[in-house]
């Protein structure tokens, strides 16, 4: 299941770099596309603004099939205060921009499953696929707007996983 999680994240990250190359984050001394997986970074008191944070939650399996299917729930959390140049008055627009980027990043709704323990990553036999994101209501905290989009990510367990 880790391969599916890794493949999903890397698909979104690669697509984001194309959709909005300016959305980046400086993380551990490196500038990267503005999307990260919470569980693979040091614990944070506060999530960074203007980037997408993937948080893996629920897990379900269906083992009655020829290949066990895993369904993993991924929350994509993002928040913004708008830009300084507009005094934060564009925070609604900034959040809408991030909404649209999530929609664009998740299309097409599948990607090749890759094994990232190999270098370079090795293509596996199946595809990881997912549903359309379900957007939650905006949460307002003073000048900060945040939202969570939930995506159900499906994959088949392959031999050796």
């Amino acid at each position, binding site marked *: 299941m880790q391969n599916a999680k890794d493949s999903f994240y890397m698909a979104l990250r690669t697509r984001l770099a194309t959709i909005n190359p300016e959305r980046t984050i400086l993380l551990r001394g490196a500038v990267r596309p503005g999307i990260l997986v919470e569980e693979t970074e040091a614990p944070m008191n506060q999530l960074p603004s203007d980037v997408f944070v993937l948080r893996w939650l629920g897990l379900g399996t269906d083992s009655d099939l*020829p*290949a066990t299917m895993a369904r993993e729930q991924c929350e994509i959390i993002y928040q913004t205060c708008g830009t300084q140049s507009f005094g934060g008055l564009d925070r609604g627009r900034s959040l809408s921009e991030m909404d649209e980027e999530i929609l664009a990043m998740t299309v097409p*709704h599948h990607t090749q499953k890759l094994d990232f323990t190999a270098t370079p990553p090795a293509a596996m*036999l*199946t*595809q990881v*696929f997912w*549903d359309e994101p379900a957007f939650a209501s905006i949460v307002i905290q003073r000048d900060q707007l945040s939202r969570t989009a939930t995506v159900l990510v499906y994959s*088949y367990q*392959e031999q050796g996983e």
Partner: protein
Amino acid sequence: MTATWFQAPAPVARRVRAFFAPVNRSAQTPVLFDPAQQGRFSLDAPPAPWISLGWIQNFVRKPLSKSAPMLAGIPASPLEQVRETLEAQVSLEFLSWTKLTMALATGSQHMNILAAAIGATASANGAQAVPAVTPQSGSNATQIMLAATDAQEFQVGSIVAVDVDNTGQTGYVGSPVVGAYIRQAIADVDYIRRVTFNVALVSAVSNSGLTLAEPLPGGAPVAGAKVQAVEGFVDREGGSFYHEWSALFVLEGSQGERVFFHYPRLQAAVGAEETVTPLSSKQQSGQSRVLLNGRFIALPVTDPLDNERVVCYRSFLPAANALV
């Protein structure tokens, strides 16, 4: 050892895509889909003459063929089976209203509402039309060359119909899709442009003619074709004409596998009907989407491979590396 294959579970798909192509009614020739040569086509660029009608929903296939046992012996028991009837139906909902989806979802002629001449007598199909204009040489599927005075009659955003005059002919009319069957000569000179599927949206107008936002389905205007502005579309409950289409429904699975349902001959089984669906399940009386319902009866073809009569082909292209 690294696995090079996997056991694929049943296909998982989000939605179904529909493609239609007109049956050549005069020659009684359906359009055939060849899964061997065309199976991996891009769903956004179907092979000619297939026309994409986009995603559909509530796609339901009903095989209605009946088999019956041949009984023998005392007491009688089944000896063999025979197929008594050959029939199938398909139903679906189109997610858009276009000339083609409306035509498919109605049981009779589908007409263009031609822009009416000033002072013309009212008619349920649209009044007598503004006279058609003649394309000039150099026209093609996306560019209709016109005299400057003719071009001024059209505006950006208007729809045009391009086809020949009705000169009293009978039989199947309309190009490239048969729009009607004329049993007895009709006086309306614009009748063929009323039923033609050769329509497109105008994206630009200049003194030299019209630029179209999409190619005319019939390609460059044929000799004798004329152009008229279209206000919208109209169809009727009743009538004796049935459109006939070849249809291809594609279900693309999560692992890249594809299932094709190919009906060489489909005719509408019911008149025009719609389904109204509230946009919000929590507010039934709020905004609602109106979807065109299509219900079709499949007609048989004789498969030249073995001369069997069939109504549908179901093809499956497995996912890469999947055990079969």
